[in-house]
Each structure stands twice: as C-alpha cells, then as structure tokens.
C-alpha cells in the first residue's frame, strides 16, 4: 500500500463517518481511527483496495468485514433447535405415550419433536431440519423461555 492509498483511506474515513478502519496484510497492519466505535477491514493488498469503497454505500453504519472464521470444531456443525415461545416443554403427548424423539434418533423435517404448552394451548413443534438428535437440552415438563435451545441436531 503506497502513501497515496493511505491518504485516500484517511480521507474516506473522515468523510464516511466510519469510526475505525483496520487493514491487516502479510507484513503490515494499519488502523485508522476516529474517536468513535471500531470498524475492521481485513484484507490482502489488492483486495484491500477493492474492499474499501464498500462502506461508502452505508456511511453511517459501522461496516464490519470479519476475518475468516477459525477452523471449525465438531460442535459447530450441529444445529440448535430453539423454542419459538415461552411455555412448558413436553417430550411426549401425554405421560403414558412414548417420547417423540430420543438421542440417536434420525428425524426428518416435519417430524414432531416436542410439545410446548402455554396457557392451555398445546403446540406441537415440528423440526425444520433433517438429521440425528445429538442432545436434548431441556428436561421434560420444565419451563422454557423464548429462543431457549431445546435440541442439538447433527444434520450430516
């Protein structure tokens, strides 16, 4: 990156309202800051020049170009099924009926996996994904919050 590019970058930051631009390359790193909240741009040299105009489109919004995600571990492949509402979590339709799903079961999208009862309304929750149940995260008959994770599913 030459001095001209750096000057242009400083002008861009000043005009755009972006709070901070960081450019990290193989052999150097530059961070241009105003005294507000940070924005990061990480890129190699040719990409950096191309990437910079992007924030102009939304000058007031903080633009974040995240670094490539670190190598994934095993659990990151899993999908979390969350509760769509506040209520009570049930694993079967009544105490004398079998559980909808057990750990290790293969499920298809559309299969009922639990019931959440709220104010005497009974909600059969169908899976949106196909895969294998890896973990059940809530005990039967326990209260659940909105968005609380209920199941881990391995979609592979």
């Amino acid at each position, binding site marked *: 990156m030459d001095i001209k590019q750096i000057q242009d970058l400083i002008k861009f930051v000043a005009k755009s309202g972006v709070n901070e631009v960081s450019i990290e390359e193989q052999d150097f790193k530059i961070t241009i800051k105003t005294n507000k909240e940070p924005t990061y741009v990480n890129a190699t040299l040719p990409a950096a020049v191309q990437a910079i105009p992007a924030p102009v489109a939304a000058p007031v919004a903080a633009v974040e170009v995240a670094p490539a995600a670190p190598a994934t571990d095993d659990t990151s492949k899993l999908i979390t099924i969350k509760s769509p509402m*506040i209520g009570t979590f049930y694993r079967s339709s009544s*105490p004398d009926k079998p559980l909808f799903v057990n750990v290790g079961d293969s499920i298809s999208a559309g299969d*009922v996996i639990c019931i959440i009862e*709220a*104010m*005497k309304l009974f*909600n059969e929750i*169908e899976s949106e994904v196909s895969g294998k149940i890896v973990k059940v995260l809530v005990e039967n008959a326990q209260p659940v919050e909105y968005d609380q994770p209920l199941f881990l599913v391995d979609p592979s």
Partner: protein
Amino acid sequence: MQSNTFSSFLNGQKFITLKSISSTNDYLKEELSKSAPFSEGTVIMAEEQFGGRGQSGNKWLSESGKNLTFSILLKPSFLNPIQQFNINIVICVAIYEALYPLLGEELAIKWPNDIYVGDRKLGGILIENILQGNEWRESVVGIGINVNQEDFSGLKNACSIKELLHREYILTDLLYDLCKSIEKCYFQLKNQGIADLQLVYKKALYGLNEVRKFNLEGVSVEGKIIDVADDGQLIVDFNGHSARFNFKEIEFVF
C-alpha cells in the same frame, strides 16, 4: 363417514361427520400429518367421542349423539406464535357470542377457555397448534358443548343447554351458528386486530372483579381477578398486590 360442503362459512371447506372417534382433534391432526389437503375451515364432527380430553388429560364424558363435539382447522400463519392467545380469545368470544342469544347474562368465559353458565361448566376448548420453527402452520381447535345431555352423574358442576332451557337442540344447527361466529371473529382478528375481541373476552370473564377463593399450589387464598395480560396470564389482586399466573399455577375453588 359422511362428507358435505358447508358453503356459507369459511368458504368451500370440508365438513366431515364421524360416527365414533377417539377425538376429533386427533383425527384432524393425524390426517394433516398424512398430508390430507384440508383447507382452513375444515370441520370434523363426531357423534360419539370416546377419548375426548379435557384439561390435563381429564376425560370429558359425553353421551353418544347428545352433545356437540367438533374440531375446526385454522391456519393462522399471519400471527407470530407468541401471539397465540389471540386465537384463544377469538374462539372463546365466538362461542360466547353465538350462545349469548340463547343463554344470556349468566354465560361466561372461565379463564383461559372454558364456557360457563353461572357456576357450572357448559363446554370446553382444546387448542392444539402445529409449528415449524417460528412458522405457525395450523391450529386444530377442538370444541365440546353439552347440548342435550341431562345426566351428569359424578360431575357436580356440569350443565347442558337442554337442562337450562328445557328443550332439545339440533346439534348441526348449533354447529352452524358456532362456525359462523368463529368465522366472523377470526376475520375480525385478521382485519381489525385483537383489541375489540379482547374487550369482549374480558367483559365476559367468569369472576371478574369478584373476591373469590383460589388454590395456589395447595395454599387457599382469597383474591380478585382484575385483568388478563396480552399473553394470556391471569392477573389477580390480593389486597392491593397483583400477581400474574400461568395456566395450572392457579386453580379456582368452588
């Protein structure tokens, strides 16, 4: 099995009457799970329902052919699942408004969804929803109304329309009135929102603003129902301190 079309309400849907079935809700849900092409407004009616469920799995006893037991299918995908108490309000208000001309001032809605006349139960509602993720696909609304049954041995606080009015009612006439009313209230929710329906629900609430006994997990207390929250929680006042309750956290003592 008999299949007709009731063209005048919830247009063009199916109306299925079954001689004897464990539960019309179960039948409808099972057919839906087999991808039956049932449209909104499909009605399943049973002459005899032998496995009907009341609250917490209580058996609901119905003499064959004497009472109205049916389920109606709604597809309220325009609502977020967290607004589902609105469907409860729609159904309660629809039944209340359909029966009010017959039964008058004594008719009431007991929170969250029983139909009472005075201190006795006339009917109940069981709503079962089918959700995929955050998408509310179907609502299977089961309704049971005691119509021509006169013998309620063992059930001290049950009553029927015949017992109250001393005449027989034709079940399908009543079904028609109820479905018309459900259609009206459901479209009112769709087009104008919940506000007016909520007012009717609260006005019709059994025990509103009356000091009465409740059972709170084994403890007997006196309190006064003052409101129902938007999410359906019952708001009860105890000597100036109000508290909110979910279903089963509070029990009416008769």
